[in-house]
């Protein structure tokens, strides 16, 4: 019994540590709701650390074009993400055009984009750290930077 208890504690402890590691980078939230009848309703919550890992499984030749484009903007992207991480929470952009409304908000360590128009609502929240790691992985697809 004691042995089983120890094994159980070990297993639970391992799971908890694993969960802590996986969630340490935060979560990517994606929600899409189509307003038409029987429209798509999608809600996705993914540990952010999966994104850069997933990019590694994409063949380099399929990422070559994206990698080349990202590399030329990498200094700006790095500066922007670094600046965003250091600045307080703020609504960066808020645009209303007729019946469409889009906001881009820096909240905590994430960038949150919300779009609402007569057809659908979209909510995307991406941790800045995950965005940086994913972009770095894409940029590295063409070889070391």
């Amino acid at each position, binding site marked *: 019994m004691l042995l089983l208890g120890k094994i159980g504690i070990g297993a639970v402890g391992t799971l908890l540590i694993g969960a802590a590691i996986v969630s340490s980078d935060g979560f990517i939230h994606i929600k899409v709701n189509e307003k038409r009848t029987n429209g798509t309703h999608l809600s996705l919550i993914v540990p952010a650390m999966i994104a850069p890992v997933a990019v590694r499984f994409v063949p380099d030749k399929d990422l070559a074009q994206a990698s080349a484009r990202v590399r030329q903007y990498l200094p700006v992207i790095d500066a922007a993400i670094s600046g965003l991480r250091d*600045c307080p929470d703020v609504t960066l952009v808020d645009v209303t055009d*007729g019946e469409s409304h889009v906001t881009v908000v820096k909240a905590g360590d994430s960038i949150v984009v919300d779009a609402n128009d007569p057809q659908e609502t979209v909510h995307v929240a991406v941790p800045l750290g995950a965005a940086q790691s994913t972009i770095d992985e894409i940029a590295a697809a063409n070889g070391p930077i």
Partner: protein
Amino acid sequence: MRKILVTLAALSMSSAILAATPERYLHVRVDSANANERVRVNIPLSLAEKVIPAIHARQLNNGMVQIGSFQANDVDLPAILNAVKSAPDGVFVTVQKPGTDVRVAKEHGQLIVHVMDRKDDTRVDVTIPWSVAEALTSQTNAHQLNVEAALEALDRAGDVTLVTARDSHSQQTVRVWVDSHNTAD
């Protein structure tokens, strides 16, 4: 021992004061009454100061904007700034082109620019702290504006409305200003 404690206390207070310096924001507000459009942009100046030097595009490189082909009704911006700099306060340097009046003056430590486009019935008023205007033309050649230096100077300047513009045809108003609030409303 007492001197060490006093020194440490002073250093701690200085750090706290520096850390508590509020972020300053560049705000842009665009309202278009007849098109039901509304734009609000709030950019932390610290973010802009990091991003601008990193941009290497056609006309913006290392914080410098190339204005060699800057048209704006053939207005030579560096020449105007030099003329205003040497003119007394309150005296306008006026540039008149067909359909467009540009009046520039230095007043109360600020550079003031009024642009009236009679053809489009558009009016633009620009007020820039003189320190920012000087930073724009610092360490540049005749065809450059130093945006990076201007941003740093803007961060040190007080709250100020930089641009107000009104287009009567589209009933669109634009306001650009800097303050310590993180909203544009």
